């Protein structure tokens, strides 16, 4: 008798599980997963998503980096190198300026400590996340754009 009971119990436990599977099979809804790369054009990452590090430039090609190297010090693995230059300002002072902002993409851990440490808010982690390249040398990037300048209010 208990033998039959065992069979009944195991069958019913399995059927109840199957019932759930069947329920989801019959009531299929929108896919829970991202249909990447089919949705590449419409895919929007959340605003805080940590993708590529960028030095923000405005339309006049001005950035806010004063070249203070705080981000270089904050970076745990030396992904950032700030190369400075000296520049004579209008009132005759010899001031430190950013020459090149080098970011080694391949070393970055996306911790955003650099963004957090920047006193002027010059950095941001952008949403772009497709980083594949054919040559890893191209992963060493210069973040300040050609001919860009420090914003006037920070000079």
């Amino acid at each position, binding site marked *: 008798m208990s033998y039959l009971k065992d069979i009944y*119990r*195991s069958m019913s436990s*399995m059927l109840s599980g199957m019932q*759930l*599977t069947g329920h989801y099979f019959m009531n299929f809804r929108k896919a829970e*997963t991202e249909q990447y790369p089919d949705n590449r054009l419409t895919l929007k990452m959340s605003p*805080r998503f940590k993708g590529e590090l960028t030095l923000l430039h405005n339309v006049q090609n001005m950035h806010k980096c004063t070249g203070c190297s705080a981000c270089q010090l904050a*970076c*745990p693995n030396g992904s950032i190198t700030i190369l400075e230059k000296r520049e004579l300002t209008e009132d005759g002072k010899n001031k430190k300026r950013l020459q090149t902002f080098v970011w080694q993409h391949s070393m970055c851990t996306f911790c955003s*400590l650099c963004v957090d440490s920047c006193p002027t808010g010059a950095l941001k982690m952008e949403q772009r996340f497709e980083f594949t390249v054919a040559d890893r040398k191209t992963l060493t990037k210069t973040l300040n754009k050609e001919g860009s300048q420090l914003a006037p209010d920070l000079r």
Partner: protein
Amino acid sequence: MPELETITETGEYILNVGPQHPATHGVMHLRIKLDGEIIESIEPVLGYIHRSIEKMSESLTYRQLIQMTSRMDYLSAHINNTGVALTIERALQVEVPQRALVVRTILAELTRLASHQLWWAATGLDLGAVTPFFLGFRDREVITTIFEEVCGSRLTMNYIVPGGLMEDIPNGFAERVNKFLIDFEHHLPEYDQLLSDNEIFLARNVGIGILSKEEALSFGCSGPMARASGLSCDVRKWHPYDLYSSLEFNEVLLTQGDCYARYKVRIREMYQSIRIIKQLINQIPEGEYQAKVKKIIKLPEGEYYERVETARGEFGVYIISDGKSSNPYRIKYRSPGFSNLASLSALATGGNIGDLVAIMASIDLVIPDIDR
């Protein structure tokens, strides 16, 4: 080399499981001595993904080394980060704003939920059921999306800093979490329906891999692993941090100590986590999200130890500071996975090789946490 021999002089068979094997959930290597199908001895061989995080941390500043802990137990990243931040805060005697504490506690419990969901999904998969994998990941996906909105990362976060949070929580955080809780409370009974009462699952788990309370204690097990053997060890109860002293929740304790008890403890812990989040989510106070802490942190000379309860057990942070430099003189992490794995020989010896997969699934191994 004797290690490469597969048959010993006395006729036992040496079986190597891993380092690349799906059941080990990562790069771990087990050397098993078999007598027929019976496990005579089992020995984990570690070190395949050792990254010397502790040594590396000695040359990093206190702010920089937090992100390393996300790469240890990556399923409890927020909780690990909290552990280090807590140690630094208590050493500096910083008062963390209430808002940050509430958010930290919510995130910690969400992390625990996500970790247990992944464990449940993987357990099902290990034991041959594929559906749990999809259902577990369906729910976990919502949590990781919430994490992504809060701190920009889905797995290796760096959101908790000494003094509070790196950024304020985004708008609509509470609504998102509330919506998830409603959905998940509805989904959690499905977990039971699908797996907990399943006859095959029961046959493979009940009475398998029994760990007694004394053994749990002597191996230094913690977390669900020890609580399934009746050892009360919840850090949130014994050494409350964040807001846990003022919250209502139960420490889940079972006494059987077998694989099924460990399974049950984790399932019930999910209910407790939901209960904790519910108490906080609608009362996130306004105000600061970060206390003022110097940019360059220097701890006063001395030794500091704090612990937190991750999804796997007690995570301890031990820092020695020489009081002069801005990096720790020595740092040691007590990771729960390592001690839990130590009990493997007690669990599996004398049992069938086929039960090993169920036992490993019930330990909930995260190998980077063990190897660091």
